[in-house]
């Protein structure tokens, strides 16, 4: 589904990704862990198409298409979803207006008819219930005045409504208490299917107790320096990241 080959990307003239290679097949859950500044979030934004994130070498194909050649919204239409580490507040635009615009645009791109308001509101209320967000949040400005946990649950709500093929979740677990973490994990697990893949970017092994990954990768210095199964996450939790940096060849890790 997603094939990243030797990806180099820079932000503000600083090279962050330095030859990242990763393949994600349909239905798989990949966890990407790594120390601060290793390029985890940059990977998410490079895939989502953030302006200013310049890919200088390498390729990314998604569902057989050249992802890097597409606008941000086109990537979304094709099924790429990035749950933000820091979701943006949009005062004056209600969550409902925002969600309807997103769902309509996505459905339209897939050749589906727009949902009428009543059916959409029903869907939105169901989704907000599933992420344990009171329906009153649908009427408020997008993320406006939401707590950290409420913003993350609102990201999950959007993901449920947009039904993407590839869900990239950028530290969705950080800042969540255990109850909120379980809500998010429950939502993700409910969405897992043979056609949908997940890339979970996280600092903490804790999330992986609730969402069992098929693969765990360590990102360091802009490259994936180690891959394994879920036991790698436990090893990282125990030993930290130092031993991986130590074991990597000199010059390979920034």
């Amino acid at each position: 589904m997603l094939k990243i080959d030797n990806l180099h990307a820079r932000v503000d003239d600083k090279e962050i990704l330095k030859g990242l290679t990763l393949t994600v097949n349909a239905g798989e859950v990949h966890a990407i862990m790594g120390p601060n500044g290793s390029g985890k979030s940059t990977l998410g934004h490079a895939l989502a198409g953030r302006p200013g994130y310049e890919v200088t070498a390498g390729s990314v194909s998604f569902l057989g298409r050249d992802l890097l050649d597409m606008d941000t919204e086109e990537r979304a239409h094709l099924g790429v979803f990035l749950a933000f580490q820091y979701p943006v507040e949009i005062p004056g635009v209600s969550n409902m207006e925002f969600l309807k615009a997103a769902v309509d645009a996505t459905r339209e791109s897939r050749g589906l008819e727009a949902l009428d308001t009543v059916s959409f509101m029903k869907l939105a209320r169901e989704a907000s219930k599933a992420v344990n967000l009171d329906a009153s949040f649908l009427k408020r400005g997008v993320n406006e005045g939401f707590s950290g946990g409420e913003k993350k649950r609102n990201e999950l709500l959007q993901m449920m409504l947009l039904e993407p093929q590839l869900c990239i979740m950028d530290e969705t677990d950080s800042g969540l208490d255990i109850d909120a973490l379980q809500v998010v994990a429950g939502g993700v697990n409910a969405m897992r299917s043979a056609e949908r893949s997940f890339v979970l970017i996280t600092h903490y092994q804790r999330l992986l107790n609730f969402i069992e990954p098929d693969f765990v990768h360590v990102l360091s210095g802009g490259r994936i320096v180690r891959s394994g199964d879920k036991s790698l996450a436990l090893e990282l939790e125990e030993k930290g990241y130092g031993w991986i940096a130590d074991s990597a060849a000199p010059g390979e890790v920034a």
Partner: protein
Amino acid sequence: MSDFISGLLVERDGPAWLEARREAGLARWRAAEKPTRRTEAWKYTSLQLLERDFNAATPAAIPEDGLPQFGGARLVFVDGFLQGAIDDIALPPGVGLVRFVDADPGQAARIADHIGTAVASDKHLFANLNDATLADGLFLDVAAGAQLDEPLHIVHVTTDREPAFSVSQRLLVVLGDNAEASVIEHFSGESTAAFTSGITELLLGAGARMQHCRLHLEQGGAMHIGGVHALLQRDSLLDSFHLALGSDLKRIDVTVEFAGPGAHCDLNGIYLLRGSEHVDYHTCIEHAVPHCTTDEVFRGVIGDEARGVFNGRIHIHPDAQKTRAELSNRNLLTSAGAEINTKPELEIYADDVQCAHGATVAQLDEGVLYYLRTRGVGREEAEVMLSYGFINELIEALVHEPLRDFLHPLLAQRLSRDPLLTRHLA
């Protein structure tokens, strides 16, 4: 431009006191120095468009009724002429409403006592022009303790007629002690080339409360130079909301003078400009007495090659201790050719006050646009949504629901002519 008034001065029927007022206004207008671009208060607003011949307005046909109803009584003036009769309007006890030309001697005396007391004719040249060309006016007189709960909706339509013509409007509102009233002033006309001079005076007695709204929805070649001038007695409360869609020329002066302690003013405004339109808001709050508070927020969205001007002055006099006053002016420029000249001015001569002011000029936030686009919303629609959200916060704060319902789609459509880009708003 000193002569452009000549075409407007025609013989009118009407009471002698009104004629006297016109003559006095004309004398002041003629004697006053006319502003040039070197005049600070007119630095960014050219009056060149007034260098032409205007005629006095003549009665026009009633336009098709596409005007909104806000739940209360509604008066419609077309090119300055009232349609229908005031007598047909039911008003609560203690609430008087009369045209200047119909005022009985008692009412005329009350008008004479109050008119011109909130607007400083030496500072507002165009109030003199308004006086000099005044054919009629409206007097809303609310007795002490009386209440006008449903908003009185006063519509001024200007039509699309040649040759160019001018309309003068005057509204005088006097609220007795502890009286309450709600008024919506609504100027409209989509393709008019009329010049309107609209002056409103709001006199609030002790403990009086007023909801006031002034909508400048005239578009195209419309020109309006006018103002709202309020005088607030002890413990009174004024909530005044302003909205201007751009047109060839709009200059609105809003002044609020606190004349007694404990009074409060909420002053909010929005301006939306595109094309080569021009809107200039000058606001001035005079804190002349202690223990009064002001919250003022103006926001503008300016696109294309349009030019906006905002000058917000708050003047705290030496005796005005314990004043709290906040002024915020935020602007969103949606194109490289758009321009805003903003100048918040705080002048503080008292030492025990809390004051804050700020002005910002920004473009659409790329980070927020990116967020919307990652959800599949196209860039153009995302831009419209952001612009809308920027002003919608002030619309949402309006108390009167039918007014909010009227403004939401109007503003969305103003931000984009493409209905596909506004379909998720309002």
